[in-house]
């Protein structure tokens, strides 16, 4: 794609609080995000809450490339925070949105990100109520970094925590694993596969809220982002002192994702997801949980993939493999390096 070198770009002055800053907010950001132009821009948003129990979370987003199959940094920044609220048992309510932009970023590209943020926020029924923009010199950031913080109303039905988990509980996985991480690494490194992969980037709050409303017996939820399913399960095992046994045959994996991971020598269990959750549920409620999930577009291949067990020796996550063997699933220790041959 040819880039128009004369296209308007973000300048240092766009972040210094002066005229250009004001123009960027009023002419570029607000028209994309606000339903109506606010009559005044205050220093803080005022929220009327329906409950005393809220969940509050924050996360920063850096991703390369900014636009990838199935999403972009804007969508990611909304979904990521929505999902953190979702797995905490909250219904997302309000979002803050802050940008750190490297000078030279084309305004058109920024507008595409804003458009994506707006669309994603609407789909996930979360309002963007406050925000900030800073600019930094070229080389001090990589195009654009986004921070979002979110507030959600904790659902009355939600009584979640590591301490609720008992031996005999089941491990529910809401869908395929590894899609986001393998899409990003393949696109970043320019590795092409016959079938296109797509990031699973999506907000899961509607599904988790539905699940919590419908079923008693949900004890814990977590979105398996960085470190993937392996990190999430190991964290549960570590925090509870219990062990976990999962069955490889029951873990849904998109065949292209598996093929891509095989080519690069990566273990899909440790690859990031951005639209999935793991729930620990009571054995009695497990089947109903799967049923509810499968009625939702984001949970079509949800399944029970394993069981929480009493620890025999040291707490561990073990997997029964496709051929009936067993192996340990360790906590990933950081980004794996693709192999040589």
């Amino acid at each position: 794609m040819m880039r128009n070198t004369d296209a308007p770009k973000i300048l240092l002055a766009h972040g210094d609080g002066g005229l250009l800053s004001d123009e960027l907010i009023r002419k570029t950001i607000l028209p994309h995000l606000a339903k109506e132009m606010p009559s005044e821009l205050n220093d803080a948003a005022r929220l009327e809450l329906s409950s005393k129990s809220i969940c509050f979370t924050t996360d920063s987003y850096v991703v390369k490339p900014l636009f990838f199959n199935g999403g972009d940094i804007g969508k990611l920044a909304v979904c990521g925070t929505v999902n953190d609220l979702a797995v905490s048992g909250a219904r997302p309510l309000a979002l803050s949105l802050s940008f750190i932009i490297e000078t030279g970023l084309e305004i058109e590209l920024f507008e595409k990100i804003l458009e994506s943020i707006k669309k994603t926020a609407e789909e996930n029924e979360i309002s963007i109520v406050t925000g900030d923009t800073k600019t930094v010199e070229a080389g001090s950031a990589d195009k654009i970094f986004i921070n979002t913080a979110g507030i959600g109303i904790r659902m009355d039905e939600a009584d979640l925590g590591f301490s609720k988990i008992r031996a005999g509980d089941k491990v529910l996985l809401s869908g395929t694993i590894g899609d986001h991480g393998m899409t990003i690494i393949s696109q970043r490194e320019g590795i092409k596969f016959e079938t296109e992969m797509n990031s699973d980037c999506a907000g899961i709050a509607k599904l988790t809220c539905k699940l919590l409303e419908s079923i008693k017996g949900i004890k814990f939820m977590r979105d398996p982002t960085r470190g993937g399913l392996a990190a999430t399960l190991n964290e549960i095992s570590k925090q509870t002192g219990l062990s976990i046994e999962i069955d490889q045959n029951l873990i849904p994996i998109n065949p292209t994702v598996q093929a891509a991971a095989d080519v690069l020598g990566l273990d899909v269990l440790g690859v990031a997801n951005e639209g999935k959750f793991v729930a620990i549920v009571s054995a009695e409620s497990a089947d109903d949980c799967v049923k509810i999930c499968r009625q939702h577009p984001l949970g079509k291949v949800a399944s029970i993939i394993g069981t929480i067990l009493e620890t025999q020796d040291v707490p561990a996550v073990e997997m029964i493999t496709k051929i009936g063997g067993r192996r340990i699933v360790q906590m990933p220790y950081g980004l794996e390096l693709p192999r040589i041959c």
Partner: protein
Amino acid sequence: MLDRIYKAQNLISEACKKQGRAINIMEVCGTHTVAIFRSGIRATLPEGLNLLSGPGCPVCVTDQSYIDTVLELADKSDVLIATYGDMIRVPGHGGSLETRQPANNVKVVFSSQDAIQIAKDNSDKTVIFLAVGFETTAPATGVIVMQAAREKIENFCILSGHKLVVPAMRALLSGKNDKIDAFLCPGHVSVIIGYGAYEEIVRDFKRPCVVAGFEPIQIIEGLAEICHQLVEGAAETKSIYKAAVTEKGNLKAQQIISECFEAADGYWRGLGKIDKSTLKLKDKYSRFDAYQRYNITETPHAELEGCRCGEVLCGLIRPPECSLFGKKCTPQSPVGPCMVSSEGTCAAYYKYGTRRKKS
């Protein structure tokens, strides 16, 4: 699929009973090592069958002197190091590329083509490509060396650490570890060299050589074929990875290797000096040879203190027998290369085979 697995498992069990002693099968391919661990194959095998992981991981077999040389070259201000990812964490004497680099002079590449592109994009620097790997990656190195010659890309050279599999197998059987009963031969390498290349092992050492693919079922069937041969008292070279491996291999890739390289004596971690076991650039390409350009002579360096990667690579000990394993040496803080590479035997044991000790 399960039927085939049960059938193969039964055959292996019977063979183990009939032999009346442990059967030692060595795989010489990092991808096999990882596949065996990830699929949990060991747990499905009878006790009498020992799977040994041999010198099959390119990073692991690279001698300490190579790593130290790389670190010295990386200190030069007019040099860019282009390397496959696995190499950057391998510790040398006084650090690794990851810890010692001036952050911007080491570039991780996914293919040799990326390395030549970096040279084109940085005409004020000399790009040194760390050409490691077996016959699998050597053709890709050959292609860029020929390209550099054709396009006169003079700010480019390679530090060849390429190695040949068969000489290493010979060296093992000739003294380092003669307890190996058979080889599960590497899939990727055999695509290039063909399963006929193991004929000399069969002829001179009477050891079965069977090439298998990477699916768990292919690995188990490969082991079953080996057991079958051992029980029959036979030793043949055979491929059950028929979709990819032929007797003669990939002739075009072999031509590229012979156009650019010649076999030379060289050092291996754990195995020491092996005759005609490494690939050195031919004289006509010597100007792209970093050894020549920087006047480097290859002399073996001592391994890092306490590291037993050499013995691991020869199948003489299992990683947990090394006192550093899981304590001083972990994937987060590796002492030896077998813990660095995702295909290293120690990393595989650590990740898939061991329970964490109570801390």
